[in-house]
């Protein structure tokens, strides 16, 4: 199967998903993680407008569950993960608490950021998860985390997840140049869903050959069918392992598709940027269905097991809604304290106070040269 959005939607249904090489029990875990993420997003989507209680832009990730689910099985608590605006999958992948995600987008004091950030700017510092809505900004901050890991000679990894839209940005290419030269322990994960909002990658770029281009910078790059969770797991597992051994950087481009609009639950089909044929191809290649079929063929999933999984997930989601809706709104209006940390304990410890000098007002300014 040729991995290009130009041809994928005309391809036959994907038939290459294989459970080979997965550790025992991993396939069912990947399936369960995808189902959790899907059901969570569906529930938020369904509740968004009727109640009008989630008053922040949300970029849903339905259809793009494979990569986050694979990452969720590979990242360590001390790894750092950075995400773009379509943040829920990565937040989930880093194992940050979902009830704090719910409370955050409900604008509550118990949210991950006490209602200051919302869906597209959410972070969870204790989990080392960070996101932001300005494309490629978080990509380049991730570079610094990788530099910090190398400086400390740790085998932590920085993971930066974003879409192909971010590769329009200069900051992305600056990151390729620097990490390729410095060989930093960073994994760039591109979920290529073809469209930056409504704009086709090939309206913005001469070719959809990101992996070829980044290789010229000294960045190892792999392109995969991004709805195959088993393949995503094997690929990302191998790359993360190499990064832990100091063999970086690495980029994985996963071809996938978002089922919903760019933002929110409304249909953005009036912009006519996607064809019915393309939508059908990707729904036929739902990452959850592809995995479920293989699990059933291998007798690893029964109706009863799936029903039990669905019930657990539904209970978790109901609990998350209850927590969010039952939480208080923030009341904090100490604006300065929100923006500045005035305490500086390290300076208190290391620095003394010395009397000031007596500045001589009669001295001349520097004799300036041309440079």
């Amino acid at each position, binding site marked *: 199967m040729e991995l290009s959005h130009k041809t994928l939607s005309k391809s036959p249904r994907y038939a290459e998903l294989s459970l080979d090489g997965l550790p025992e029990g991993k396939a069912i875990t990947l399936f369960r993680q995808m189902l959790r993420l899907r059901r969570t997003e569906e529930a938020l989507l369904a509740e968004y407008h009727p109640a009008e209680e989630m008053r922040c832009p949300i970029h849903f990730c339905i259809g793009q569950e494979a990569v986050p689910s694979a990452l969720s099985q590979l990242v360590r608590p001390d790894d*750092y993960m950075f995400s773009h605006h379509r943040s829920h999958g990565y937040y989930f992948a880093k194992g940050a608490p979902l009830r704090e995600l719910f409370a955050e987008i409900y604008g509550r004091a118990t949210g*991950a*950021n*006490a209602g*200051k*950030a919302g869906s597209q*700017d959410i*972070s969870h*510092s*204790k989990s*080392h998860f*960070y996101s*932001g809505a*300005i494309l490629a*900004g978080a990509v*380049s*901050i*991730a*570079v*610094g*985390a*990788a*530099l*910090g890991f190398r*400086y*400390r000679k740790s085998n932590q990894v*920085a993971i930066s997840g974003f879409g192909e839209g971010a590769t329009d940005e200069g*900051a992305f290419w*600056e*990151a390729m*140049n*620097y990490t390729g*030269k410095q060989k930093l322990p960073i994994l760039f994960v591109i979920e290529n869903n073809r469209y930056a909002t409504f704009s086709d990658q090939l309206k913005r770029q001469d070719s959809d050959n990101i992996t070829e281009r980044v290789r010229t910078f000294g960045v190892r790059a792999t392109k995969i069918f991004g709805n195959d969770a088993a393949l995503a797991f094997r690929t990302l597992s191998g790359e993360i392992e190499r990064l832990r051994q100091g063999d970086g950087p690495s980029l994985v481009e996963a071809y996938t598709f978002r089922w919903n609009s760019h933002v929110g639950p409304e249909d953005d089909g009036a912009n006519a940027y996607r064809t019915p044929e393309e939508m059908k191809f990707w729904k036929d290649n739902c990452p959850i269905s592809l995995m479920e079929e293989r699990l059933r063929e291998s007798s690893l999933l029964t109706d009863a097991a799936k029903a039990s999984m669905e019930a657990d997930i539904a209970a978790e989601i109901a609990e998350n809604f209850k927590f969010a809706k039952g939480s208080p709104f923030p009341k904090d209006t100490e604006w300065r*304290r*929100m*923006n*500045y*940390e005035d305490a*500086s304990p*390290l*300076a208190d410890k*290391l*620095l*003394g*106070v*010395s*009397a*000031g*000098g*007596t*500045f*001589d*007002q*009669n*001295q001349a*300014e*520097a*004799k*300036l040269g*041309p440079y």
Partner: protein
Amino acid sequence: MDPTEKMSRQLSYAKAILEATDQAMGLSNDVIVLGQLVDTQSGIFGTTTGLVNKYGAHRVMDFPVSENLMTATAMGAALTGLRPIIAHQRLDFMIYSLDAIANWLALWRFKSNGESAMPVTIRTIVGKGWGQGPQHSKSLHAWFAHLPGLRVAVPATAYDAKGLLLESIFSQTPAIFVEGRGLYSMLDDVPEEPYRVRFGQAVVRRSGADVTVVAIGNLVPVALKAAAVLEKDGIDVEIVDPRTLNPLDRKTLCDSTFKTRRLVVADPAWHSFGAATEIITTVVENLGDKLKAKPVRVTLPDSHTPMSMSLEPEYYVDESDVIAAVKQTLA
């Protein structure tokens, strides 16, 4: 040791910055320096010279000509516990990093609800004179002071440069450190030990009774010279140096003006929407009806910087401009 003897060592502004950086790196392995050519002998006007030999290339890192990535890299490194210092050869180059600064660095603490800090110090230089022209001389401290979440230092003396830089490196809030190229060779008494100058504490550089002149950055020595001239005319000027613009020590500015009832602000930046405007507004809001004269701004014109040596003196502020402004408040 005799305190006067202890105070006797003089260092240039550039050497004070170098010493602060050196001492910070010695005090903590978390301190690193990133910047174009920081690892060279010339070392950004001598402010980083020799550090690479002492601390190694893993702590004093040359960086590609990618200012935006450099800033973001410092931010990510800070998230892992490092305390990076970035140095730019001119403020004008730093403008490539406005996304990193305005969209990420300034609001990082806010949007993490205070749970995540980015102790990054960004050193930047305002060129002035010898034809630096419109892309080597922009004085944009007010831009940065406008952003919540950032602190902005405008040190005028070697003593303040060292103390504020050390304070910035070991604090939790990011800071922009605006240096005047013309100040680099100017000497001051600089204690040898690592010491702090806190943000938000203005200093009265010269006590006087008649007119308060608030002077910023490289206009501090200019204002002091103007005050010496005015003294001969029997005019007693008080010079206040805010030292940092964010936070701004509004109390000291107001207290001084309350005493003199007259205010001049000398700001080496464009006239409109600048630090001078903010300072005058603060004073007028607090003691408008107590002022004996309209406040006066001494600033650059609302124009980009000309290259030609015939226009530079017209464009930049000197003692005579400060003297005229002080006299205007007494007219």
